Every structure is written in structure tokens, then in C-alpha cells.
């Protein structure tokens, strides 16, 4: 059993060193081995994303938020499914029923956004629906 603070926190120290080392190693390796392309787009912080500079008051589509919320919906479901799977055999039928209730609740949320047209991204089909 670890007793002194150093022993207790030694794994944390190792993990911190690993994390820092991995980050430095990857960045260092890519700067040593990689090709050096220099142009305006390559130098931007998010090479393939949105333009990182501009007015802060710019409006962008609400779909971004909807996708983020959808992600959370299924993310949470997955987070709860993992521990459930691990202990499923010990818990038996009642665990199955409880998880079924949970999944049905999630699915009714999914059904709601589907029917509301959140997954319908093209303009034409939206107009056709109306």
C-alpha cells in the first residue's frame, strides 16, 4: 500500500509526464520530419475550419447548436451504457428493464427532433415538407 504522499501521487506524476512528453514528442516529431508548407491558409489556427478572425457579432447557423445537442444526447446514452454492460450479468432482468426505459426516453427525444426537421438539412426538402 502506498503511504507517503510521494507514493500516493506517483502514478499521477507519471501520467502528467507522459501527457507532456507525448504532446512535446508529437509536435517536435512533426516539426522535424514533416514538410514545411508556408502559406496564409496553412498558418491559420484552424486549417480546415471556419475563418478564425472576423466580427464577433457574426451570426452562424443554429444547426451547429442542434448538432452539438444531438451529440450530447447520444453521448450521454453511451456513457450510461458502458457501466451497465459491465454489470449486466450480475443485475439481471431489472437492469434490462431500467435501461430499456432510459433508451426509450432518449429515443422519444430523438423522435421529437427528427419530426421537427432538425435532421433535414437541405432547403428544398424543408420547403417540400411545408
Amino acid at each position, binding site marked *: 500500500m502506498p503511504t507517503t504522499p510521494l507514493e500516493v501521487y506517483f502514478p499521477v506524476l507519471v501520467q502528467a509526464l507522459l501527457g507532456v512528453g507525448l504532446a512535446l514528442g508529437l509536435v517536435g516529431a512533426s516539426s522535424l520530419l514533416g514538410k514545411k508548407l508556408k502559406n496564409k491558409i496553412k498558418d491559420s489556427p484552424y486549417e480546415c475550419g471556419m475563418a478564425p478572425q472576423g466580427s464577433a457579432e457574426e451570426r452562424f447557423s443554429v444547426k451547429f447548436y442542434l448538432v452539438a445537442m444531438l451529440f450530447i444526447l447520444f453521448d450521454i446514452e453511451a456513457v450510461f451504457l458502458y457501466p451497465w454492460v459491465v*454489470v449486466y450479468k450480475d443485475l439481471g432482468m431489472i437492469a434490462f428493464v431500467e435501461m430499456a426505459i432510459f433508451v426509450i*426516453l432518449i429515443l*422519444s*427525444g430523438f423522435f*421529437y427532433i427528427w*419530426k*421537427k*426537421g432538425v435532421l433535414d438539412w437541405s432547403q428544398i426538402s424543408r420547403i417540400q415538407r*411545408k
Partner: protein
Amino acid sequence: MPANFAFPTEAEYIRFLPETILILMGTLIMVLEGFAGDGHRKGTHKVALFGLFLAMAAACYAGSNPGPAFSDFLLVDGFGTFFRMLVLTVGILAVLCSPSYLSRERADSGEYYALILYSLVGQCILATANELIMVFIGLEISSIATYVLAGYLRDDKRNNESAIKYFLLGSFATAFLLYGVAWIYGLTGSTNLAVIRQYLQTSATADPALVGLAAGLMFVGFAFKVSAAPFQAWTPDVYQGAPAPVTAFMSAGPKAAAFAVFIRVYITAFDGIAETWLPVVWVSALATMVIGNFAALTQTNIKRVLAYSSIAHAGYVLVAVAAHSQIGTAAAMFYLASYVFMNIGAFALISHLSRQGERYVQVNDLAGLSQRQPVTAALFAIFLLSLIGVPLTGGFFGKFYIFKAALDSQLYWLTVLGLLNSAVAAYYYLRIIVVMYFHEPGHATESLEEPAAGIRVASLVAALAVVVLGVAPSLLLNVASRSSAIGR
């Protein structure tokens, strides 16, 4: 799997039945809304009402077999059942006065009612929470739904302002609460209220100053939710900007639930260190009453008048908390019950009087209301008289029991200052009555239609409750006294 693990018994599921019903009915409304697609579906409010009555029956049934549930996470006792019934009543009254308002604003959709039901889930959890994590979860469920409701008319600037202010400040306050919970867990090793209480009473290892600090951090969170000074600044803006039926709901339900959990946490868990937090509550009670009443004097917008009045009323309830006795708890319960009816009744009538786009929300817009619609004026007058605390209304006995409890606990100064405050408050309530009864009708009252059926029912029920509480207060006070023994 731990050796002492056991699935919850049937009785424990029954103790959680009101919340289960609310969740299922809210989800049912969302699914129905999905079937309706983009078109607006009328009648979802009936589903919501049915769910609320069902939940009330379940709360009664759960209360008939009191006890803990889910490893002591919830404690269904008289106190919790009292507040469950109270917030569900708030829900019913709020749902009743919503359909006419929403169809007037062309925002008649099921999500609104689903959000009210979800918010009530949080409030029911708050009423019975016996554990700090449940307190936090209940507070969040209740608040997040209310944030959305405050900005429900999303094309309306005032709604947006209201929602964003409420959301930003509310999440900040909840962070303080959570930080306090973390401190308490670090100091006592538990989040269970009874265990914390026992630890603080028997063990000398917890530094009282640190525990006091943690209790103070949690006080910030609770004081925000009940709009107690110095964390009341959001209240007028949020209440003014939100749709009137939503203001009715959130000035009553979340507030009563937050007071329930505030009283339960401080009387149960922090009873042993009462001498550290009682002065804070004392000062906050006085500041809340003074700020609420004096700021209301200069307001011309009727929603802001009632918002400041709602701050002041939180101050009166804090007086009962400062009394720190079982009588004080019973007085707070009685006061909150009568406050809920008079406040929701007043806001129900405002949602009728304000007209489309809430154009007429100035005090002067009520000029001559008694000549155009004598019944509406009379009902509004009943609510205002009860808010003043005139005898034969629930507000009178509410204040009477609170100041009696304060006197019993030797809080003489607080009682005197509180009574002086009530006298100040009479001015701004009476001003509204004078405008309604003695001013010549203006153009605002001329175009007024008859109130919708839902608003009529909600305001009549609320007025009836206010009068019954004023004529026969013992009906409710006996229940409150019986259920006020918490933490013992």
C-alpha cells in the same frame, strides 16, 4: 457489485411516483408535438393538466407512506409532501392561464407545457431531496426548464433579455452552491443531510469557520434562487421580460421549492452551526424586505412592482427562517402557500390585462378597470390586499404567524423593522387599487375583452384560496405544523 447492494423496493418507487408521472407526461407531450410536426397542436395543455392532477394524486399517495427512497437520496415526509402539493398547484394554475396568452402571441405549442412539467420534476425533487447532490440536480432540472420558459417567445427582445440574464446569473449562482457542496463533502465526508448533521454535532474535527464558509457559499446559491438580498438584482428584469404566465409560474413554483430545500438543508444539516448562519439570514431578511419594498415605491410598470414585491415577500419568509424554530418553519410554509396563491393570481390577471405583445403593463393602464370589468378589478384587489396583509386574507395570517414566530425567538428588532416594512408596502399596492377604482377609464381599459376561461378559473381558484386561508387559516396551519418537524 458491493455486497450490501439491493434494488429499491416497491415502496421506494412509489415515493418517486409524482416525478415519474411528470417525466412521462412531459415526454408524451413532446412525442405528440412531434406527430403534429410544424403545425401547431391545440389541446396539449389538457394533457399537461391531466398529468399534473395525476402527479398530485401520486404525491398524496406517496405521502401516505412516508420514508426514504433510493439509499436515502430522497426523503418523502410531511414537509416534502406539503411542498410537492404546493408546486403542483402552482403548475396547474400556471397551465390554466397559459393557453389564451400563447395563442394570442401565436406561440401555442406543446413544448411550453412539457417544459413546465419538467421544471416541476425538479421542484418535486427539491421538495424531497435529502442529499446535497439531489439538491443540486433538482435545482438544475427546475432552473434549466425555467431559463427556456423565460425566453419562450424567441422573437421578443424582452424575452431574450430576460432569459439570458436569468441563465447567466443563475448558472453563476448554482456554481457557488456546488462549490459549497464540494466543501461540505470535503469537510464531513458525506452529502447526506442527516449524516452531515450528526458529524457536525458530534465531531470536533471540522473547523466551524470552514463549515460556516461552506454554508455561506451554499447560501449564495439559495439566496439567488429565492431572490434574497444581496442576490436579488436579477428579479425585476427577469420577471418583467418573461411572458406573464411564465412570470406567474417562476415567481411561485421555483421560489417555493428553493425555500423548501433551503429550510431543509439549514435546519437539518447545519443545525449544529446555527450561530454562524443565523446572523447572515437576519441581515439578509432585513435587507431583502427593505430593498424590495422601497424599490417598489417608484416603479410604474406593474410587473416590476410585483417583482419587487416578490423580493420583499422572500424577506418575510427569511424572517421565519431566522426564527430558527419549528413554529418558524410552519409559519414559512403557511406564508409560502398563501404567497403562491396571491402572486400567481395577480400575474394570471396581468397576462389577461397586458394584451397582445404585453402593451399595457403600466400601472396607469389599469385606470378605471373597476368600471369596465368589475370582477377582474375585484379579484385583482383581493390579491393586492392579501399582498399587503389585510385581515381576512391569507397574507394577513402569513405575516401574523411569521412575526409571532420571530417574537417567540426574541427577534424583536427584526419584527419591528418587518412590520414597518409592511406599512411601507401598503402604499404601492394601494396605489394600484386607487388607479383601478378611482381614476377615469383610459384608452387602455376601453379595448379590454373578457378574460379567457382558463384565466378566469385560475384567478377565481387563487382568490378563493386566499380568502379561505384568511378566514380559516387553521385548515392549512395544522397541516403545516404537523409537517414542520424536519431534521429531528
